[in-house]
């Protein structure tokens, strides 16, 4: 349970931390940078293609391997293991 002293000290520290707030200028600057950086983010597919192009052979192999594991997983999960074990 918090007593009055704790609450007062919490408030004092909250106020002390307000000294660390960014200036209006800094806030505006960061806002501009953030929105510009977000707008410049490449779409996911483009990012993926860029990644593939950087190491075409290795990344194509990885991609096909991942796809194969996925397909295998789906196929294996479709097998009625419980029914087969009773045979």
């Amino acid at each position: 349970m918090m007593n009055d002293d704790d609450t007062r000290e919490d408030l004092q520290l909250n106020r002390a931390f307000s000294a660390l707030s960014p200036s209006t200028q800094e806030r505006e600057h960061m806002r501009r940078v953030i929105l510009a950086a977000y707008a410049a983010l490449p779409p996911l597919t483009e990012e993926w293609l860029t990644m593939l192009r950087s190491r075409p052979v290795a990344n194509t192999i990885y991609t096909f391997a991942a796809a194969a594991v996925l397909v295998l997983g789906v196929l294996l999960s479709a097998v009625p293991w419980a029914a087969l074990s009773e045979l």
Partner: protein
Amino acid sequence: MYLLFAILVGRPDRIPGPPEPPEAEVQSLVLRSRGGDTEAMGALYEFYVERVYRSVRPLCGSAAATEDVVQDAFVKAFASLHGYEKRDNQRFIAWLSTIALNGARNQSARGRRRRELRERDAAREVTEAPRTPESALLDAEARGRLLRALEALPKRDREVLSLRYGADLEASEVAAACALSAANVRKICERQRRRLLAELTIRNDEDEAARAGEDP
């Protein structure tokens, strides 16, 4: 005494951001932002930038490094809003602060470019014209005093206090971000809160005494 008052009531030349909206409004802004609505992103930014900035400022070496961390955190958050789900009643500010905290940890681990950033800060201090010399002095002194006092704390405690009082998170939210128990967070806050306030008062008195000594 005036300086202590200024620390405790905040600085007049910093225009505070808008008050935090109800969580339902935040969720609707998040939803709109997920669809790429930059106006909603701007609103989220305005609501939370101060708290995120205050929570990572003591963990970064300089104001410029803090800006980088805050910017990265917001861009990352906006780009991965699909990953944010309001699980276990997690507030948006708690999720955002955790991203910023991780960014600050990585940034301080890298530690490079720090000198360069400090130099950039120093240059900015000169180019950023304060409203009055007195307010600039109050700004720098209050900020410096708090940062020095926080620097004396262990890193984990500094993170806890920064999230608790800078981002204004609940003990349970701080606990989740720092991988601690809520009881542990409360204990750390209780232990370090008084120490920090005492340290601030001592430093304030020292500064005032030094200023009095300088006066003819």
